[in-house]
Structures are given as C-alpha cells and as structure tokens.
C-alpha cells in the first residue's frame, strides 16, 4: 500500500493507505481527528471542509494521496490551547449552531472567506457559504456569527 505524508495541524504525519482513501477518512479513521464530518459524501454539504495549503476544500472529494506533502488544517487545529479561534468563539457567542453537525465545515469555510475578504457583507457571507448546508439553523445566526468572527479576526490581526 502507498504511504502518504503530510502536515496536519502543524504536526508531520504519515500513514499507509489505499490509493482510493479519501482525505476525510484518513483524517478521521487513521489520525482520529473526528471533528471533520461527512454529511453527504456527494460533494454538496460542506461538513467535511478543511484547509489544504491555505484554501478551503471538501475533504470527501480529495484523495488522501493527493494531499501528499500538503499542509492541512482541520477544525481541531484552529484553537490556540484552550483559547478558541475568534471564528469559533463568534459561533458560540451568536448561537451559530444547533446540532453542530455542519459547524466544523461552516467555521473552516468562514475562516477561508475572511482571509480573502476581511470585511464581507451579509450577501458575500451568504455566497461564501454556498457550499455549506445546515439542516437546523436557518442560517441567520451563522451569518451573524461570521460577521462578528470576521471583525474579531481583523482586530486580532491588528494587535499582531
């Protein structure tokens, strides 16, 4: 079986996998990082979104072997110790979740969105989260959370 090596949340990891292993399965089953969810498995819901080399992708639609040598960040890699990432904190503060199943993907997509657009409008947030489906919230609080999270991320960036 081929061996794959990559950096996940700053840690060098490797594993023997079948070529057909999806990145999400490598993360969940081999690395035990179960924060990344599988909602649809048909590339539509975004529960599986992680960052690969700095951009958000659907990890159910990428082969683990294609991430050879890549820098991967999952929801587990966002917080600093006990301190939540500003986007995670904003989701908690603004009640941007109910069951929480879609939340890891929502947060990962939102962080990527704010990186390219530091001050997104409500419309841009809704468009930016086009690939993330939530069955519970009706999206209003998610949009509020992303708006607040963006502000907090910018304030953090300014503090350096």
């Amino acid at each position, binding site marked *: 079986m*081929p061996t794959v090596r990559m950096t996940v949340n700053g840690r060098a990891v490797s594993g023997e996998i*079948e*070529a*057909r292993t*999806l990145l999400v399965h490598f993360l969940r089953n081999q690395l035990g990082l179960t924060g990344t969810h599988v909602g649809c*498995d*048909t*590339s539509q819901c*975004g529960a599986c*979104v992680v960052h690969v080399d700095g*951009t*958000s*992708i*659907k990890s159910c*639609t*990428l*082969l683990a*072997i*294609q991430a*050879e040598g890549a820098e991967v960040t999952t929801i587990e890699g966002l917080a600093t110790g006990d301190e939540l990432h500003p986007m995670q904190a904003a989701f908690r503060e603004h009640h941007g979740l109910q069951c929480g199943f879609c939340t890891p993907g929502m947060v990962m*997509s939102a962080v*990527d*969105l704010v990186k390219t657009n530091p001050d997104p409008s409500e419309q841009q947030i809704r468009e*930016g*989260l*086009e*690939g*993330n489906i939530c069955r519970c919230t009706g999206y209003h609080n998610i949009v509020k959370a992303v708006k607040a999270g963006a502000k907090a991320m910018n304030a953090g960036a300014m503090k350096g």
Partner: protein
Amino acid sequence: MHNFNYHRPNNVADAVTALGGAGDGKIIAGGMTLVPTLKQRLAAPSDLIDLNGIADLKGIKAESDGITIGAMTRHAEVAASSLVKSAIPALAELAELIGDRQVRNRGTIGGSLANNDPAADYPAAILGLGATVRTNKREIAADDFFQGLFETALEEGEIITAVHFPKPEKAAYRKFAQPASRFALIGVFVAKTKGGIRVAVTGGGNGVFRATDIETALAANFTPAAAKGVKLDPADFNGDLHGTPEYRAALVSTMAARAVEAC
C-alpha cells in the same frame, strides 16, 4: 469506490505514457466531477493519472490577441485573475458563478471542458468566445470541440493542455442557476467578436449550442429587445422537474437579453 493505481507525473509526456500504459486509465484534474463518479461506481478505472503535479498546465498568460489559460487552472484563479478581469471580464464573472467556493478552489477549466456537462458554465464561454482548445496533439476550434451530451472531440488518451481565448469586443454571461445544484438551468454567453456575434447556450439539455436565430437578430440590431423577441422551439429543449422545455426555451431569450444589456 474501487481501488486503482495512482500516478502523479510532473510533465505531460509522462502523463501520456502513464495513460497509454494503463489497462483502463483515467485522468484526474480537480476531481470535483470524477471523485463523485468513482464513489458511485459509475466509473472504475484501473489507474488514475493525476495532473496536479504538472506545473506547465497551470496559470494564465496574455497572448497577442487574447489570453491563454492552462488546463489545470482552478475556477477560483480565473475568477480572481486581474489579467482575465481586464481582458475578458465576462469570463472571470462566469468562473465566479460556478458551484461554490470549495468547488472553485479545486475544479479546473480542463476538467470542465473534458467533462462537457450539458449544464456546465465554461462550455458556454468557450463556444461563445470562439476559443481554441489545445491538447497534447493538436488545436481544436470550439465549434468542433463539443459534440453533445458529455461528448467531445477528444480522442482516447488525448489531454487538454490549455484554452486560448481571443479578446472579444464585448461579452457577457447571464446564468439562471438551478437553486440546489448551482448548475445552469439556462446560461447564455453573448459575445461581439471579430468573426461576428456569437450566442452560446448551456443548460438546454443536449449540450452547449449556438442560438443562431438570436445571433442573426443581434447582428441586425444589438439590443436586449432584439434578443427577447426571438422565440426558440421548445422541441429542442429538455424538460425535468426544474423546468419544462417551454420554460427553458423562453429563458434563453430572457437571459440573452440580459446578457446584451450587460455588454
């Protein structure tokens, strides 16, 4: 998904060799169409040849009369490219309308063309702008490239390397998205090119095509009303739960008019 052998060549020649040497090899580009297809076991290739390691296939460059986009260039790169925005803004806008952010971060122009989904966006731009598809073997004019439902002029083992777009005088794309999938229920690309007016329609059902009646009307009078006034025959359109053939046919004239307005 069935298992397969995985190859990651770093140049086109090695990719062609790997493809030729495989029992039933298939190229993987962005994987946004292929991986879901493999999961459903609608395809079960013996070998996957990954083009993601081939630097020569990536990037956007200016060429005398327009721009050239490498086959492995992601939708997100085309949408954000200042080169595309200044030479052919309609193309950058179209790329921004494809699927969602994560699909745009992985999906490629070469993959979209090779796949030729009847509701995909890029085929409308390629045909509307009269672009040229470059492969490892030859150049194929847009008018010859698309051959109906998921069919293209590509031969066995042929790899798209780039697409060349001549700069139009004016162009615009208007898409009525199917709200769940974001694919085009109808998308219309209108361009005023050196060779005349071209109107390409996607989402009709049987693959991208040129609406010649609208082209003729616009050649005489380049106004939204002229486009809107053309009635297309519903018999040429597909019907499904998202829209009847009559609805799709009517949408073409409406979207064409909006595109003309945006030109």
